[in-house]
Structures are given as C-alpha cells and as structure tokens.
C-alpha cells in the first residue's frame, strides 16, 4: 500500500535539472503573464465588454509549474475551467483567450460556444472540457488506456479542483487507473473552496492525497504556492507514468484569491479571510525568491509587467475588433461535416 507523502519546498539552490535557471525564469514570466491576463479579464467584465469570467488567481504556481512538466503536444492534458495558468504555460495565447472571453466567432477553443476558458486544442493534445465538474477525469483515464494500449511512452495529465473529488467520476476513474496502472497523473488544485463550500465540508478525512492509498497509487501532497516543488512533483509523476510505472494523485494546495467567478459575490468569506489569503499570494513570494537568488534582475519584474500589460491590451483590442458568431452558424458541427 502506498502512503501519501508531502513534497518539501525545494530550495532555490536546487533547481530541478530538467527545468534549469532559464526554465525558472520562464516559469516566473508565465505566472506573471497569467496574473496580468487574469486581472485584465476581470476588468473587461467589469467594463461590460464580456459577460463572465473565471480565473485562477492564486493557482498560478500550481498551474504554470505543473504544465511546464508536460511534454506539450505529446503528453495529453485535461484542463478545467480554472486552468488559465496551465493553459498559458502549455501554449494557449492571451489573444486566443480574449477571443473566447469577448465572444468572438474566431475563438479557436470553442468558437465562443462554451463559457470562456474551457480550453481545447488538438495541437496541444488538450481535449475540450465541459463545465460539468469532474467529467474529464474518466476521459483522462480513457486516454491513458488508449496510449497504454498502443504502447506510447506518453502520459496524460488531468486537472481538477478539490470539489471535483466528491463526484463519482473521480472515484470511478481513479479506481480504473489504479487497477490497470494506467499512465495518468491526477492533479488536484485544492483551493479550499468549492464556490461557498469549504474543504471541511467537501473532503471527508480532510486530505485528497490520502485517498490515493485506497486506489493503490502514490498520493503526493505538494505546496501549490511553491512552483518548484510543484514542478518537481509533477515532473516525477509524469516520468513514472511515461515509463509505465502507473498513476499518481497529486494534491496541490492553492488559494482562490478572487470570488469563484464574476457571478459570485464571495459574501460567504470575510474580508479578514480574504486579506489572509492575499498575504500568501504565490506571485510576489516567487519573485522575491528569484530576486534573492539572483535569477532575475531587479528591474525585470517591472519591465516584464509593463511589456505584458501592453501586449495584453493589444491582444484585447485585436480580438475585440472581430465579429461574434452568427445565428446562421448555430447548428454547424453538431455532427461530423463532409470533409
């Protein structure tokens, strides 16, 4: 029986070899870009230019770092609606995301049919996901079955929140993955809340990672605010999967620094609670570690911020100039179309 084990924070002197100093800088830049995009998207909604947004503020470390461990385009990835940082790290562009948020026909993800940020890309082997919580978990296991059957040395990474672990889908899928030692990594972003329901009323026993033992697979608890620890845990799990050593369940503790979505009041959390979360924001923490270690120059964070802000505004404008879908398009692709 496997016991779950926590991953200890990685000191910066010990940067994972497969990441390297350049990788660490890249990781920070991805997190920063994600954060700035996230903030921009909420502004867009507040300005009435979009109906809805849901982002991963406070999840950037967990999302960007884990996605960097993916062999993008070779490994398979199932995201969920909160996976903005993973998407950016995998290779979705802010421009593409604006197209969805602004409801443009040219949105390559869903043609603005889905709510924003329901990622999908054939090129990135990121199959389309729905809003129905946890439905992608059995999909991931099916994909892992397919690649295993064909003997391909690739892994499938599947993201979801801790609320999703309460669903039957989670259980049925992990059981099959455990039974057949399928090459899949389950990555739970535990932000302590499923809309208004806190962890204590969501996960009996209190630990997602501990559930792994019951499925005969390793469970890993990792500090989802520490990008390097997340990278290491995910990298190891993906390697295990790729070399045929079976599935892993990773639980990364994150913060939800925004309301659940732009439709949510967040009234069930107090200002004090929110302030306490903000104080633990993974972004400045990582920046300061990198500055202290001399991995980024003192002026870089601000310079990058300005650059990203400018490019995001340009992306937004470029996207905004495009037309929405037409009523005539509505029934296209209900079924396969003649090719």
């Amino acid at each position: 029986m496997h016991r779950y084990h926590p991953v200890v924070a990685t000191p910066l002197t010990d940067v994972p070899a497969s990441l390297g100093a350049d990788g660490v800088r890249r990781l920070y830049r991805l997190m920063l870009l994600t954060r700035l995009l996230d903030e921009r998207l909420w502004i867009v909604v507040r300005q009435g230019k979009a109906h809805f947004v849901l982002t991963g503020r406070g999840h950037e470390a967990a999302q960007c770092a884990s996605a960097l461990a993916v062999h993008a385009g070779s490994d398979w990835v199932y995201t969920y609606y909160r996976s903005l940082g993973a998407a950016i790290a995998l290779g979705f562009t802010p421009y593409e995301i604006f197209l969805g948020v602004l409801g443009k026909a040219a949105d390559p993800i869903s043609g603005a049919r889905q709510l924003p940020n329901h990622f999908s890309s054939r090129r990135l082997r990121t199959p389309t996901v729905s809003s129905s919580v946890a439905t992608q978990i059995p999909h991931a296991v099916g994909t892992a079955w397919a690649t295993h059957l064909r003997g391909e040395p690739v892994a499938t990474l599947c993201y979801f929140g801790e609320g999703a672990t309460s669903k039957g889908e989670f259980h049925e899928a992990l059981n099959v993955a455990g039974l057949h030692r399928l090459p899949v990594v389950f990555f739970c972003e535990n932000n302590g809340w499923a809309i208004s329901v806190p962890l204590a009323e969501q996960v009996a026993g209190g630990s997602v990672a501990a559930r792994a033992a019951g499925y005969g697979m390793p469970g890993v608890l990792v500090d989802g605010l520490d990008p390097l620890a997340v990278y290491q845990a995910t990298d190891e799990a993906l390697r295990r999967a790729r070399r045929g050593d079976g599935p892993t369940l990773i639980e990364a503790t994150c913060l939800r620094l925004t309301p659940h979505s732009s439709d949510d009041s967040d009234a069930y959390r107090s200002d004090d609670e929110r302030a306490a979360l903000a104080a633990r924001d993974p972004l400045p923490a990582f920046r300061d570690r990198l500055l202290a270690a001399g991995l980024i120059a003192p002026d870089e964070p601000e310079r990058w911020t300005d650059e990203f802000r400018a490019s995001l505004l340009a992306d937004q404008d470029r996207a905004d100039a495009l037309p929405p879908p037409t009523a005539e398009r509505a029934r296209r692709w209900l079924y396969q179309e003649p090719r």
Partner: protein
Amino acid sequence: MPEWTMLEAIRETLRAEMREDDSVVVLGEDVARKGGVFGVTAGFLEEFGPLRVLDTPVAEIAIAGMAIGAAFAGLRPVAEFQFADYIHPGYDQLVNEAATIRWRSVGEWGCPVVFRAPCGAGVFGGLYHSQSVEALFCHVPGLKVVLPSTPRDAAGLLRAAIRDDDPVLFFEHKKSYRRYREPVDADPAPIPLGAARIDREGDTLTLVTYGVGVHWGREAADFLAAEGITVEIVDLRTLKPLDTETIARSVAKTSRLAILHEANRTLGVGAEVAAFAAEELFDSLDAPIVRIAANDCHLPYTGEEERGIIPQPADILAALRRLARY
C-alpha cells in the same frame, strides 16, 4: 398581499413550508452559506440551521440519493440541483429510484421529494447553464414535472409539490425569476399538480406553452390582437401529468393548435401535446399543428448564436400568423 418576483415567491413559500413542517429540509450545493447561486435559500441557514439546510459536496448522486433515503425515513426533502444542466449525473437516482419506489413496493414506501433546478437560456451561460431538460423526465412513469411561469403559480405549485407524496421535478426558468412582481398570497393555496391554466382567452387559435414560453406567448398575443387574431394561451404549469382536458377544451373552441417551448423540438413536450391532439382531437383540428421550439441544438455563450436556435419573437409571430390564416 406582498408583491413578489417568482424567485421571492419560491423562497417565501419554501420558507413557510419549512416553518410549518419540521420534516421539510433543504439540501444541495451552496444552498446554506451562500443561500443558493440565485439566492432562493438566502437566510435559511440562519433560520433553520445547518442540519435542515445542508450544504452538500459537489455530488449530484448524493444529493438525489440522500433526499430519497431521507424521505424513506419520513422527511420531505427539497433537493436543489444548482443548474438543470447538472441534473444528469443524478439521473439514475431519479429514473431508476425515485420514480419506481412506490410502484416497486406496491405502495408500501413513497418518495415525497421535490427536486428543484433552475433551467433555461438567455443568460449567456453556454451549454452548461442554459438547458431545458424537462422533457427528459416526462417519459418516465412515476415522476411528476412542474415548470411555473408566474410568481403566483410558482408559490401554489411549490406548495403542492412539497406536500405531494410522490417525487416532483420542479424547474424554475432563470429568466422568469425576476421578470416581474405580482401580489402573491403569503399562505398560498396549493395548485393541484396536473392542472393547466388558461392564461388568456382567445378564439383564433390555441397556444399551448409553459414557463418562459408563456411570456413569449403573451407578447405575441398582444401583437396579434391588433391584427384581429386572438390567441388562447394555455399555460400547462405541470408537464407530467399533462392536463389534456384543458388542451382539448381549448382546441374544441379554436380548432387550431400551436405549441411553444424553449426546449428542443424533437421529443420536447410539444411532441406529446401534438401527438395527443393528433390522436384525440383530430376531428376538431382545422389546420396542421404547429410546433415552435428550439432548433435541436446545444446553446452557446453568445446571444448572437443563441438567436439561431431559440424561437425569436418574429418566428413566433410568423408561425402563429400562418396558423391563423391557414
């Protein structure tokens, strides 16, 4: 008499039932701390406590299944699915369990549960916050299906549903929640399940509809009145059992039948109404039956594309005019 929106009417009726009867309890995702995503149960946690207002995990099988098990033990649970789109994971508990309990125990056990779910489109919700799923339950014996259109009806129907000894699916169209206020009896008489209501009288044609369709129908009828076409609107209110008598009476008068709903056309509730009429009212019909319904498609995030699927005012007018002039 207070003036309530449909949302308020539902909230206050539910609250009144919980005050009156200790066995009425509420469970679902975000129903307690948050008071539901639409605020239907706002304030309930404070008044009735966390055991009678249970925030469940994200687990629709558990929501439906626990409600059923609690009903076995004598409670009258009102279970909420956060959106009708998320009722599907609990489908087995509804179709194989709730619907069969009384019949399979030759009357020894029952399932007095109300399963509530906000439904319907027009809110930029995409394909998982827009669905009309009511027809998926009307084929299943043992269930009842309700979908009110007005604050007053919502109050009386919810009261009847909670007091009913059998499982009732109670759908609430999101676009009806705050459409308007009207005076509602704070102690409303239960409206019998299975009784349609003539929403307005007319002679030219019968428009059978429900939910948001009633409001669309009213607008169309107002318009057509000016053209001398008077539309009799039948608000079904209960979709299962269907009040075929009221439909028959109206068609006997008008000889023309149109059916309108937001849900998809194919095997929507309109199919059953049309089939009933084609079987039983054939000789009264002077014209082909007309179904006005969604264009058999999922629903998108953008309003532009949604208009290509859901019946638009102009479509409704054109269809009714054609029928009137047939």
